[in-house]
């Protein structure tokens, strides 16, 4: 038993240890006009979800600003361990990056400690609205309930069984906003429909996400959605059962072109450009930004390969229009 206790402790400790590989390139002293950005992310830049949404946005900004010579991007991915992330954030600040992005709400308390030590460096933290009242911290978030609502309206229109399954990681933050918005969207269009929500308690357990999808399908769901990077397991099961899928955070059509109807995609560049303008004008923080449908920070990308495209596209556009002009009000629980 003693041995088991020891082992259990070790197992619990190890489940917290995660890889810290893939650090960014070593920075070289840059000419003054080059804008240098460093970003620290909890998962991989190609996770088809949260981290990829930020990386893709940075690449788009880089393109707009004139390529790597004008806009340098370095990143640390898979920073599940907050202490490692904190070390990386401090490291980037020390190296004099113009903007250091802490892309994960779990990094907040670390940033609160680090930012005051580097008053000339601008930091951005998301997803949140809290800048800690610090003059060199920007906050950003996504109104993911808006895209969730649009996806929900489409799902309600496409379901035959009136049962829809949702797979989430942990009931908080961006995931909860999306799930609640999705549910509100379904129920606004079809009050009698049943939305079953399953939070699996993990951002990485692909196997459990897949089994959650199978469970939803066995419970009669003919449409599924989910948020965070472990849903790739669920998308596979949806495809096997020929059940429609709605994505969020990044465009997930590439994974299962036949069943993905639409994805809410975050275009953080809308938020990033405002920050960069402010930084170049001498304001290093103190403001918070929201990416939403109205400012183009969120885009509903309907999958052109889906065989319900012709039906879904106009309905998505109408719903987006309604949310932007205020004729649709989203009430969250």
């Amino acid at each position, binding site marked *: 038993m003693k041995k088991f206790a020891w082992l259990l402790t070790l*197992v619990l400790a190890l489940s917290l240890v995660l890889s810290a590989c893939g650090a960014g390139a070593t920075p070289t002293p840059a000419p003054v006009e080059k804008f240098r950005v460093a970003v620290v992310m909890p998962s991989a830049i190609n996770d088809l979800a949260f981290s990829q949404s930020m990386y893709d946005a940075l690449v788009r900004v880089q393109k707009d600003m004139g390529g790597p010579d004008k806009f340098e991007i370095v990143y640390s991915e898979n920073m599940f361990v907050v202490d490692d992330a904190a070390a990386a954030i401090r490291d980037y600040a020390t190296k004099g990056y113009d903007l250091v992005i802490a892309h994960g709400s779990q990094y907040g308390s670390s940033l609160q400690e680090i930012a005051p030590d580097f008053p000339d460096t601008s930091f951005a933290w998301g997803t949140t609205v809290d800048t800690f009242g610090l003059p060199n911290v920007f906050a950003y978030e996504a109104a993911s309930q808006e895209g969730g609502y649009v996806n929900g309206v489409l799902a309600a229109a496409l379901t035959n069984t009136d049962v829809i399954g949702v797979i989430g990681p942990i009931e908080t933050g961006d995931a909860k906003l999306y799930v609640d918005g999705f549910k509100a969207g379904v129920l606004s269009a079809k009050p009698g429909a049943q939305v079953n929500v399953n939070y699996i308690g993990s951002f990485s357990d692909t196997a459990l996400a897949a089994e959650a999808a199978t469970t939803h399908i066995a419970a009669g769901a003919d449409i599924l959605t989910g948020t965070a990077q472990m849903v790739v397991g669920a998308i596979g099961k949806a495809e096997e059962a020929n059940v429609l899928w709605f994505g969020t955070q990044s465009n997930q059509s590439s994974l299962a072109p036949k069943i993905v109807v639409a994805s809410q995609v975050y275009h953080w560049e809308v938020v990033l450009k405002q920050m960069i303008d402010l930084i170049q004008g001498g304001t290093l923080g103190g403001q918070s930004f929201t990416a939403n449908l109205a400012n183009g920070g969120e885009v509903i990308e309907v999958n052109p390969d889906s065989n319900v495209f012709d039906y879904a596209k106009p309905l998505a556009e109408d719903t987006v229009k309604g949310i932007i002009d205020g004729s649709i009000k989203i009430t969250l629980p």
Partner: protein
Amino acid sequence: MISDLFSVTVLVGILASGIRLATPYLYAAIGETFSQRSGVLNLGVEGQMLLGAFAAFYVTLTTGNLWLGLMTAMLVGALMGLAMAYVTVNLQAQQGISGIGFYLFGLGMSDLLFQKLMGTVETVKGFPKIHIPGLSDIPGIGEIFFSQNILVYGAYLLVPIAWFVLNKTTLGLKIRSVGENPDAADSLGVNVGRIRYFTIILGGILSGVAGASLSIALLNVFQQNMTSGQGFIAVALVYFGAWRPTGVLGGALLFSLINALQLWVQVLNIPVPSEIAVMMPYVLTILVLVTSVSKVRAPSALSKPFEREN
């Protein structure tokens, strides 16, 4: 509500899910049982699973051959096992620490290869569900037992085979004696090092299959850190199962069935907070462990390097 849990659909769903979820645990934990019975604690299972999962996926993706994918996973697991055996048997390293080293190696290496060779999440067509005419069509039973893929069946077939090898063969006797009293075994002419090489490599092969069962049979995707701690749970299951294949089977099924149950609890909108629901498998497994006081003790030489006295 609660009574919804007792419908046929739900019970069939829970059993079928539980049997699938237990599959990777069974491969990895049976492999670990062999190495622990010979006195070697291998904490690198998770890393072996990850590299096995990647190898199987990548080979299947590029060649379209599932069996070649599976064999590559076994080969990769065997190589990881060979390295682990060299470190623990020849170099006599502290096993817990070197195991963690192998875990981190597997985690980092599988991620690196994924980034460099694939770059994004893709899917393959994995081992299909086997349809057994007649049996698969029996309502309920058919879905639970007779419409799984071949790697699921393999995992359950492995339990009696492992039991037989460990308890009824000379090889099994040698493995057990090396794990209990390597000095005595050595004096009787058993090659302790060779037996341990065998069990560690076998453990590596089975961990590789465990990874493959995720990436090319159950999920058909590969993602960084996709095993998400399953290798460590497998090590815990060996303790839970008191170093017996049947005990490991019981533990793996208990854990997986409760996990399947908690998925249904949420889907049926039973008012239990999701945080409590996802804790259920862990809490109940620990409860069973502490209430069923086991008389079986660990192999005496577990995690002790063997040094031959001259």
